[in-house]
């Protein structure tokens, strides 16, 4: 059985004390233990940002790549070895800003992997600029007179782009988050989890208390996760009451299911020293 300690590393995370990322890291480890996945069979892929450092603080295989490009990397890791459990972790700037193009295309691709976005509605590592999820009017270092645009709605985007598992959770509620991540990994297909992550250094509006006063659990409220229209309606709720939990889940063939090339053997296990191209050469004569 996999234990929490199997996932521990010697280094301590260098996030700010009280950072919402701590809760996400604990829930992530808890989910891997609960699912009993051997650490060497986990690939943790990230981009750049505070959350991008997660692979360094959990003892699984990891790739800490460049800003906004974790999803393509993760996609290929899964296609190359579909026996692995693949996670992508990143922030709102990484996923909804610079990486938005990959976000939309990954949602419609339905690779069997889990994407967790640490959404703190601010750029933390670059010391406090506006993010794609910053609310209109918020004053930051890069928007001293207030953000002019409206924020993106990741849940609505994911549903409309074709994601087969769309959920939201809260870093301040580790139990709910772990449960959500477990459900996400169990789902066959692309699972997307947007996580409210309080940033104690640069976002003094969306604090632990701010979320605690507003979030309510969709599952406790009896939400029908099979109904795409209802899921979309729920994604529009914002303000005094904000839903967390699974918005939408549907089973549909994964991208890997459509590839006979990897049906029997993952790519990485296929032998390459005896490939015969003589027929191919004949095709050209």
């Amino acid at each position: 059985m996999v234990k929490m300690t199997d996932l521990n590393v010697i280094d301590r995370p260098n996030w700010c004390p009280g950072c919402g990322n701590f809760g996400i890291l604990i829930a992530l480890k808890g989910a891997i233990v609960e699912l009993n996945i051997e650490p060497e069979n986990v690939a943790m892929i990230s981009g750049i940002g505070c959350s991008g450092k997660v692979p360094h603080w959990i003892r699984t295989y990891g790739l800490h790549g460049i800003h906004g490009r974790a999803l393509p990397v993760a996609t290929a890791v899964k296609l190359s070895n579909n026996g692995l459990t693949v996670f992508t972790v990143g922030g709102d700037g990484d996923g909804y800003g610079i990486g938005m193009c990959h976000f939309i295309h990954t949602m419609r691709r339905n690779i069997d992997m889990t994407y967790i976005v640490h959404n703190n509605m601010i750029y933390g590592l670059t010391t406090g600029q506006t993010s794609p999820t910053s609310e209109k009017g918020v004053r930051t270092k890069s928007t001293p007179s207030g953000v002019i645009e409206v924020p993106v709605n990741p849940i609505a985007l994911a549903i409309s782009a074709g994601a087969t598992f769309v959920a939201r959770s809260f870093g301040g509620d580790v139990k709910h988050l772990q449960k959500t991540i477990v459900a996400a990994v169990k789902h066959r297909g692309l699972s997307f989890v947007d996580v409210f992550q309080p940033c104690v250094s640069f976002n003094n509006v969306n604090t632990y208390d701010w979320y605690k006063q507003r979030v309510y659990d969709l599952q406790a409220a009896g939400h029908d996760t099979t109904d795409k229209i209802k899921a979309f309606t729920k994604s529009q709720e914002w303000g005094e009451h904000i839903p967390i939990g699974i918005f939408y889940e549907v089973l549909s063939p994964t991208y890997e299911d459509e590839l006979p090339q990897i049906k029997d053997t993952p790519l990485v296990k296929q032998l390459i020293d005896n490939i015969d191209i003589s027929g191919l050469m004949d095709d050209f004569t």
Partner: protein
Amino acid sequence: MAINRLTWKIGGKAGEGIMATGMIFSQSCSRGGLHVYDISEYPSLIKGGHNNLQVRVEDREIFSQVKGVNILIALNKETILLHKGELVNGAGIIYDSSEVIEPKEINDNIRLYPIPFNNIIKEIGVQGIMKNNVALGASIALIDYDFGIVGEVIKDNFKRKGDKIIDENTRAAKAGYDYIKNNFKNDFEYKLEKTGKPGRMVLTGNDAICMGAINAGCKFYAAYPMTPASSILHFMAAQERRFNIVVKHTEDEISAINMAIGAGFTGVRAMTGTSGGGFCLMTEGYGLAGMLEVPVVIILSMRPGPSTGLPTWSEQGDLKFALNASQGDFPRPVLVPGDIEESFYLTQVAFNIAEKYQTPVIVLSDKNLAENHKSTDKFDPKKVTIDRGSYADPADLAASLDTTFFKRYKYTENGISPRTIPGMKKGIYTASSDEHDEEGSISEDIDVRIKMMQKRARKMDTLAKELKQPELVGSQDTDANADADITIIAAGSTKGPIKEAMILLEKEGIKVNFLQIVYLNPFPSEKVAEVLGSAKKTAVVENNFSGQLADIIKEKTGKDVDKRVLKYDGRPFYPEEIFTAIKEVVTHG
């Protein structure tokens, strides 16, 4: 009368089947044991606009196009007006008899073969689109070539489309053939005869790259379409189920290279391909692969820039870009195939270097090499042995602790650290784009930074030691002239016209040597410096504006070449142009 030595050209509007007809002609010649080299020209649009393709045929191996066209198939009047200046004495034009050609428009020494395409098509009851086949058949009759071979090629090419399509195409070609035989005297000056020798492959540099990649065990190809690299994507996609390859047309080139990196990290041989604009988008990922020490092969197929430039034409303007793309210092091996055979073998070498040295490797091609066909002997699939590089010893891994990361970036003498891949027990580590220590953990420590930069750099030193220095060659791949009047230095697809030009120069009594640069990095500084020091005269021949190779030579050796022979109009060199330029250098300095 000239036998087995001619250039055949077909032109018309885009969408009229110019390329397909040219391919049938090339294959028909090759199957008769003749050598072919074809070159196509097309604008960046789909229907309308002028397309043309010319095929040079000889009974010796040929390496490029030459000036002078012997037969022109003009599917429209525009083709005649655009290309009549290329016709040699005694050349013939096959064209639609409904076009009116004024005597003043054409020289007296050009023969005209008007053909009533529409009547013929109506008579035999095939679709109007078959006009190109009627013309093809007519040209076969004119040069008195074996129609049976053409019929076989048509049959093979349209196999998938069914018997009806094969029959229509064959009848159209035969009708054109018969029309010429029945209505004109058999006195055309240029003829082809089959040699009885076995046929060769007719393929492009891109085809060869794909065959090389497949033979090398490439299992993952990700790309975004961009001329002239798109046909690699098409080839790999068409073969993905036959050879168990996952081929992904991605949302952009950024995704393509990051996917290739993901696959390389996971232990799969992975490749991406693009042209300059796409490689601009890939540069950050290129550096990522360098930092993570992940094997990736990148095919960079050049076309003229800057920006969109001339999308469907050829240039070698990205040499310095390939050598310097992405921030910071890291090993950047760059291989430059000069012909179709090298495209096949060097692609395999690129995979070996990528895995052995755990680094991205660029294979630098250009449109001229990527898309033109040449008849080529079958490759030797066993010539390049697969080398997967260094993996961690499972016994060492078993003895390691469960609480630490594996030393994936261990400092070693040759710079190469044995690797692990996801799934390997106790091999766990995180590959980081941040500077990192031996375990892959982020480190900003002075000592770590210095040691890690040096470790990565040592890989390039190790590779440089492994490579053979290039050799000077004579005009027919023979030994070099010891007392050559001039030495030509070049890289990439200019090799073909240079080889042809060398033959022309030697006929004039000019002794010439050729030094081909295959490895742009690690650069063969030693040999190039030696050649520059000893040659009577030197010239670089490059398809770019500034003489990038000459600059690189200067940077690496401190020496200047005597002459930069440059061409940057988007068209490849003709051997005659190189001949004239080199002769000028030799005679007037």
